[in-house]
């Protein structure tokens, strides 16, 4: 059975903090255990083979978005990827492209995501938001609208869409799907008082929604199955109508 398998992990090793270090691929062998995920395997490698191996996990339950990496050529969350998914037992791991490399499999998604949030002004724009009387009933919202907003807010900022985006590869300042999704979320929210003209100022150019080449790697690789395709199309139409 599968618990007898020896898995081969081929991992990109590079520590930019160490002068003279060069990127190399290293192979580690790990004995597979039932239910093993890449999270478990990488910790095994760190504890038993190479304590210097860098990677990021937080929740290890597929909800925090820390551990996205390129797994056999595809961006995905490593924590919830079972090793049993790979019939030949060969697993190649690379850090997520499109982000600053911290070392090995660890990349700086935080810096990128904060910049994205600042760029799309990822908050409710309502000059009264801070003077709301907290003693009174909250503003009502249609239950359907609340559910629709939550659908778009399920993004975990893992960065898979960014790494799967060909437009981003060609155009470094491209906002990418994570930014479009965030904007779409606020555009849908009746509490956000921004007008379409204001949204246009943020995404109405080639660095924004009109730069997208519609290759839709974002749609293919989003671990949360967010509706990127629909939202990009919707934002484009809405932005095209802005005079």
């Amino acid at each position, binding site marked *: 059975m599968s618990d007898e398998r020896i898995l081969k992990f081929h991992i990109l090793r590079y520590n930019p903090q160490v002068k003279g270090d060069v990127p190399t691929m290293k192979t580690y062998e790990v004995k597979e255990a039932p239910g093993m*995920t890449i999270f478990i395997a990488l910790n095994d490698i760190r504890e038993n083979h190479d304590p210097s191996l860098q990677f990021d996990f937080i929740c290890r*339950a597929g*909800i925090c978005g820390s551990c996205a990496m390129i797994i056999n050529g595809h961006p995905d969350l490593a924590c919830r990827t079972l090793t049993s998914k790979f019939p030949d037992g060969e697993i190649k791991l690379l850090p997520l492209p499109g982000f600053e490399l911290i070392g090995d499999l660890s990349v700086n998604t935080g810096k990128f995501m904060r910049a994205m949030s600042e760029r799309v002004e990822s908050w409710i724009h309502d000059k009264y*938001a*801070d003077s*709301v009387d907290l003693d009174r009933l909250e503003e009502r919202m249609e*239950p359907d609208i*609340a559910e629709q907003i939550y659908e778009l807010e399920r993004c975990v900022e893992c960065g898979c869409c960014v790494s799967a985006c060909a437009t981003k590869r060609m155009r470094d300042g491209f906002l990418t799907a994570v930014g479009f999704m965030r904007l779409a979320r606020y555009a849908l929210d009746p509490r956000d008082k921004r007008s379409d003209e204001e949204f246009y100022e943020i995404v109405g150019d080639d660095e924004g929604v009109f730069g997208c080449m519609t290759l839709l790697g974002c749609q293919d690789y989003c671990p949360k199955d967010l509706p990127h395709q629909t939202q990009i199309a919707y934002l484009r139409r809405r932005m095209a109508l802005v005079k």
Partner: protein
Amino acid sequence: MKIVYTDSLIIGGGLAGLRIAIAARQRGYDSIVLSLMPAKRSHSAAAQGGMQASLGASIKGEGDNEDVHFEDTVKGSDWGCDQDVARMFVNTAPKAIRQLCAWGVPWSRVRKGDREVVINGQKVTITEKDEAHGLITSRDFGGTKKWRTCFTSDGTGHTMLYAMDNKAIQLGIPVHERKEAIAIIHEDGVCHGAVVRDLITGELIAYIAKATVIATGGYGRLYAVTTNAVISEGIGNAIALETGVAPLGNMEAVQFHPTAIVPVGILTTEGCRGDGGLLLDKDGYRFMPDYEPGKKELASRDVVSRRMTEHIRKGKGVPSRYGDHLWLDITLLGRAHIEKNLREVKEICEYFLGIDPVKEYIPVRPTQHYSMGGVRTKPTGESPTMRGLFSAGEAACWDMHGFNRLGGNSVAETVVAGMIVGEYVADYCAENPLKIDTKLIEKFMDREKEKISTLLSREKGESAFALKKEMQQIMMDKVGIFRNEADLSQAVEELKLLHQRSKNIALRHKIASSNPELVEAIRVPKMIRLAQCVAYGAMLRKESRGAHAREDYPERNDRDWLKRTLTFWKDENADLPEVQYEELDVMKMEMPPGSRGYGVDNTIHHPDTEKRVAQLEEIKKANPSADRFEMQRLLNPIEIPEKFRGKNERIGKGFK
């Protein structure tokens, strides 16, 4: 020497930390948040099921108010909580949720008309009122009289954390990511900031602040299997302990959640049972009504976890290669409900278990989940013995949870404590100038530098990874759901040895910059000390209260143990922490100790309890016209920052 100055330094970028940073910023004080990772990845995001606040908009929440929430919280704590704090909390929770509503959380809303729900295994139709349509709705959770837990699907923590972090970004609050506070800088009982290690460059930086806040979450990772994120290692607690001045409170109060999946320990929310899910044994038999005919699956968490363990011990568990477990059955809720309100649970089942919970049972077992203990604080959030050191959220023992936290009261605490403690942090910044001798900074920086260089230069020694594993196993085996003298004293002895060995850690990979092995080597001795606090406190507490269940002392003993454990580590070279106790004053309790209503009540009562009950009756009799607000002021006068003192409006009730 690199030094960063600010007004308030917040260690930890979860809900509590961010909320305090926002409060201080809004009062005009600079705040810097330190975080191991991007703030949006904090463990707050993992809270699935919801946040308790007595809005009472849903028909099943009708009649709810602060008083009912208070009663549930105090009962839930097994009378171990600080009732002043519980009061501050319940009165402010509705405001906190309404503020988050204004800041963008897409709370699930009441939909008018009929809807089908599952209650006690039966499909029932309930009718929501027209006038409640569009207000924040709520679901049922364990240990509560009303449906009080407000939610966004089962991604409540995620949406709260995103709204909070976005608010912090809007206010321009800097979050210094990949930074770890490794020591508190202090002198003469005053805190001045922290020595912080940059996890990428390895550089040590002194962050000097008027107020320093520990908001680093719980210490679940002291256990081998836990629902907690891998960063919930209690390092914030440990650096407070290592001051020798600031005590930790009730460290032995550790909660086990009934339903984590087997074997990896990932949580499935209490919302599963709140929404009607059942617990079944190996015969497919629903056993909880036999043990707890009243609340059944929705008894308090500590109770359900113990009953499950008892049932497994009777041989009723489902055998598996990872040991026995039980089943969580949510199939009766139907696909539509699961895919809308329990979708994270569904994803977790699909990815980690390869099952579809719409059709199949989920293998579950009680698993370490929450740390009621933490940095002991006053109701203001400040350490009772170190000025300028604050703590909030799971990291703190503010003490609204006592010995058992109710589901939904945890994220609620983070934001409510964030609001309240945030105001006191701002007050502290207003009243205290930044005054520090750089020699003091140097002393602490040199001490930490020296420790790290010793670690890096030691040729041979212990492996930090191995020591951690041993500690986690001891905690699992001997400081678990059911505890006894023999196991606990063994645990204390074994941890003592580990503590000694942890002074001799050596690294295989000897570089000072980005180095996971060095991170581990710095953390593990701290974690072992915390584990010692938990085990030692548990050994000394000879009673059962809430989540602390002693097989050899099964009764709650108010007479001798109605007190809070305070743990100090005063002597750096000591092998054990020093334990003191803080009495809980029955004569000041709004709700004197009584029965929680589970199993047999074998409480040994406190001599003051009867007196206080009589006294309360007299006060009530003497003030026949007092409404519930006036009565509360008579029974339990509390201090709340001015801006949070207003009465809360409810549909159909107004401000009554």
